[in-house]
């Protein structure tokens, strides 16, 4: 599993292709071919068994014919007449012998499969008819003792024996002759069979497929084969009446055999596997030649398509790596309309979004830094200044200068507000107090030319707002409005609730602005270049950062009449412990 996980997608795709395409085709191919091969072998073996069954029937018929001849002979009283004759009466004896020979001649001549019939009595006299000459020529080659021995074991029943004393095996059917009245053994009956007609049948039966047909006798020796070769009978299983097996490990020939019960022989046929599977092998070769190019082409297709897919994915991965390294914006070019294309598009959108967000955060951080720097500038050793102002206040009171004391107290309050302690938010009340202290100091500067009015909804006083929002506006009104005129300047601050919003207006009756000047100011306030920061712009940015883009300041003005700065903020309830960078 880990190996698979470690594989890259290209190799995974290749592996999946092999699993999905090559493996099933390969397995199915093997399954089909092997089954066809097995089926053909099974059919050939079944056919061979049928053929062997026919051969078996022919051999059984053949054997039964010979056995019937031997049984017929034993029903013939001529045999017993000769075998029981004590030969006292030579005339009767020769008469009986002549009768017996007639019987033997008739039976031999009437049966193609009989070479010779011989009857041998206890005194080893034999009465024989041989088809080749009619003379007693088989008696010289007859293995009498062996035949007598095997015949005695069979207790009167016919028994087959194959003699291999000379080049070719002589096949005999033999049985002892027992007297029908005493059941005592009186002689031996031997029939030598002529297998030539059957041999020819065997030769006719062999073909390209059935290479050879063998007849094996009970001792495992080959009685004859269609190709005059020997068969290793030790391969045959003793306990099976019929069966099939490979002749040897080379598996070139399949052997099919059938055991014949009586005579106890085995018919065997050797089937050439090469001849049998010639068609299958040809089909296999053709299939191979078709299959291999198909697999190669399909593999190429898979690799090509996989590569294209992987390439797109790699582009996305590369883009992601770029982003993770810090690049703000990466655009991936993928010409796909599928899931990967969608992924690439989504990535591109995401990259753009990230860039914007980073830009915003960056700007916000810059703005905050600026405010913080300003605040720090204002806080240069504020405690020292504060303590010094307290000392001045104390000295002014000792020297009886209440104006100085008043101014120092006001300045001290402003500084206290500027230091801001820890809270970034202050109540509207504190902000107003700060404004009032600021104006009271400036009143000394403007020597009665400055008036300050406020109309505040008392319920607003407790609401928290970002610190030092109004001071830059009031400072602006005084510096750029009232300060530019010689008449009494008036500053009015109103604050009220309107539809879940708080509307704060700072209005002065100063110099005012032309509409062009007002437009310029508004552009400046809303610009983000940050190069030349003014108080209003600062306030506007902080309001937007704090409350959102929908909020900020608006300025209304009329030249030589008034300038009104309007702040609209949502009625946002903030907890005491909340910290905001404003």
């Amino acid at each position, binding site marked *: 599993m880990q190996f698979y996980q470690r594989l890259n997608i290209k190799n995974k795709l290749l592996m999946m292709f092999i699993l999905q395409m090559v493996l099933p085709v390969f397995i199915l191919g*093997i399954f089909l071919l092997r089954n066809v091969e097995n089926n053909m072998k099974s059919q050939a073996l079944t056919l061979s068994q049928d053929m062997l069954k026919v051969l078996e029937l022919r051999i059984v018929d053949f054997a039964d014919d010979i056995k019937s001849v031997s049984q017929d002979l034993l029903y013939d009283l001529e045999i017993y007449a000769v075998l029981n004759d004590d030969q006292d009466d030579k005339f009767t004896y020769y008469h009986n012998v002549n009768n017996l020979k007639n019987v033997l001649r008739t039976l031999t001549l009437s049966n193609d499969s009989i070479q010779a019939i011989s009857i041998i009595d206890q005194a080893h006299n034999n009465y024989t008819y041989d088809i080749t000459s009619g003379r007693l020529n088989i008696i010289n080659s007859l293995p009498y003792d062996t035949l007598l021995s095997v015949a005695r074991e069979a207790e009167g029943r016919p028994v087959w024996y194959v003699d291999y004393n000379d080049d070719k095996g002589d096949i005999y059917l033999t049985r002892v002759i027992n007297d029908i009245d005493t059941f005592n053994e009186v002689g031996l009956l031997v029939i030598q069979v002529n297998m030539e007609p059957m041999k020819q049948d065997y030769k006719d039966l062999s073909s390209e497929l059935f290479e050879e047909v063998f007849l094996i006798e009970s001792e495992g020796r080959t009685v004859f084969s269609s190709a005059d070769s020997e068969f290793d009978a030790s391969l045959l299983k003793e306990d099976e009446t019929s069966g099939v097996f490979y002749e040897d490990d080379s598996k070139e020939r399949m052997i099919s055999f059938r055991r014949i019960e009586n005579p106890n022989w085995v018919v065997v046929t050797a089937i050439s596997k090469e001849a049998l599977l010639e068609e299958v092998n040809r089909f296999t070769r053709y299939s191979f030649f078709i299959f291999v190019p198909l697999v190669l082409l399909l593999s190429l297709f898979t690799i090509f398509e996989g590569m294209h897919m992987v390439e797109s994915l790699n582009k996305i991965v590369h883009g992601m790596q770029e982003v993770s390294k810090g690049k703000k914006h990466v655009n991936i070019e993928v010409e796909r309309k599928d899931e990967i294309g969608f992924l690439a598009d989504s990535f591109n959108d995401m990259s753009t979004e990230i860039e914007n967000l980073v830009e915003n955060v960056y700007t916000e951080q810059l703005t905050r830094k600026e405010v913080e720097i300003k605040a720090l500038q204002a806080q240069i050793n504020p405690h020292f200044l504060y303590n010094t102002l307290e000392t001045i206040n104390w000295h002014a009171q000792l020297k009886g200068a209440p104006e100085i004391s008043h101014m120092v107290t006001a300045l001290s309050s402003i500084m206290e507000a500027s230091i801001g302690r820890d809270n970034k938010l202050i109540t509207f009340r504190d902000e107003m107090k700060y404004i009032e202290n600021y104006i009271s100091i400036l009143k000394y500067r403007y020597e009665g030319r400055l008036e300050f009015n406020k109309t505040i909804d008392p319920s607003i006083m407790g609401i928290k707002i970002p610190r030092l929002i109004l001071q830059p506006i009031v400072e602006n009104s005084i510096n750029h409005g009232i300060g530019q005129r010689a008449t009494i300047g008036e500053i009015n601050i109103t604050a009220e609730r309107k539809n879940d919003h708080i509307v704060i207006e700072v209005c002065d009756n100063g110099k005012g602005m032309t509409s062009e000047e007002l437009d310029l100011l508004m552009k400046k306030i809303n610009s983000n270049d940050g190069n030349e920061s003014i108080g209003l712009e600062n306030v506007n940015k902080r309001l937007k950062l704090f409350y959102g883009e929908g909020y900020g300041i608006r300025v209304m003005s009329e030249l030589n009449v008034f300038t009104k700065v309007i702040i609209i903020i949502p009625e946002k309830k903030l907890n005491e412990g909340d910290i905001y960078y404003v």
Partner: protein
Amino acid sequence: MKRKNILSLILLGLLVITIAVFLNSLDTLEYENTSDNESDIIEIRFSSSWAGVDSKTDFLETLIQEFEKEYPHIKVLNESMYGEDFLFTLKADFASGNGPDVFGLWPGSDLKLLIENDMIADLAPVLIDDLNWYQNFDPKVFEFLDQGNGIYSIPFEVIYEGLYINKDLFELYHVKIPENYDELLEAIETFNKHKIIPIAYNSTPEGSFIYQNMIVQLAGKYGTEHPIKRDGTIKEGYLEAMYKMREMYQMNAFPEDAFTLDDASRNALFVYKKAAMIVQGSWFNSSLLDETVGLIPFPIGKKSSVIYGVGNGNFHISQQTYKDPKKKEASLLFLKYLTSDKSRAIFNVSPSFIGTSADESGSYLKNLGIKLIQEADELVGPPDHYINRNFWESVLIKEFPNMLEGQISPEEIFEMLDDY
């Protein structure tokens, strides 16, 4: 289920299929072999003399058909033969190791020889194991067979021999039914006058029943069953019977063509009322005989001695068969079926069949036979059971015409017994 588990299962399935395909594709050699079914049927060979014109032939065929219906896996090859061919073939088959599996054979020297040569199976253990079967037979019959410690024969049928008479011919020609030898001779004379053949006789082994009946009447039970005297000569009863046969022959008591007549023609002479008398056995009973036929012991001796014995319905299993478990089982099944009550019911329809159970009764002729047995002073086995069979058939029967013609004396014939 986790992806890992699903993948593992899929791979496992793939592995299983691959292994299955591999195993299925192994190089195996198989073949269809449906042609050996015939070996399921066991063939058994049966032989008896119940064939041809024997009145039990049809009943035997019926019984075999019934048996094969009940036991379809057993095929009974009925090789029964009628007449003298039966015994010859049976002996030749046994001599050549080709004996039938189940066969009927009357007691006698042949059966004795087969038992001595261990060619017949001892069925005592089977009878002991199956007492129901054993009780099917009158125990006296087993005693009668006297086979020593073994029981080789299952006696199913008893036979008797006697003088069958056409009562209507006797009445027609006012002939007294003979009660002694003289009356028999008188009857012969009377019938001769009326051109009626007095006694249907021929010179085959079966024709010699008349001679055998005369022996038992003249020699009595002991004399018949122990035919050889201490000095090696034959007992008088056997010789005297021949002389009396010659006497009757000379009185033209027998058909003119008696020496060439076959058994069926001989029987026909009596059946179709051309002959007044015939010595026959129970197997002679048939539907051809009606109530005009009577049955008496051969009227010659002082006592009424009747030839009685177990007939061909005396069944055996060959030793060779007994050694083959399959054939033994099938043969025992057939033997038990052959000697069952069911079989008895089938054969009882035949007038020639008298079973071996304790209480037998039946048709008119059968009752005549039963009466003959019951009223007999003594029951004697057939003489040919006690004389060498080979001598009986090869010499005695062959020489009988010469003896009747006076060309050879009865003593000369029995002198030849020394060679056997």
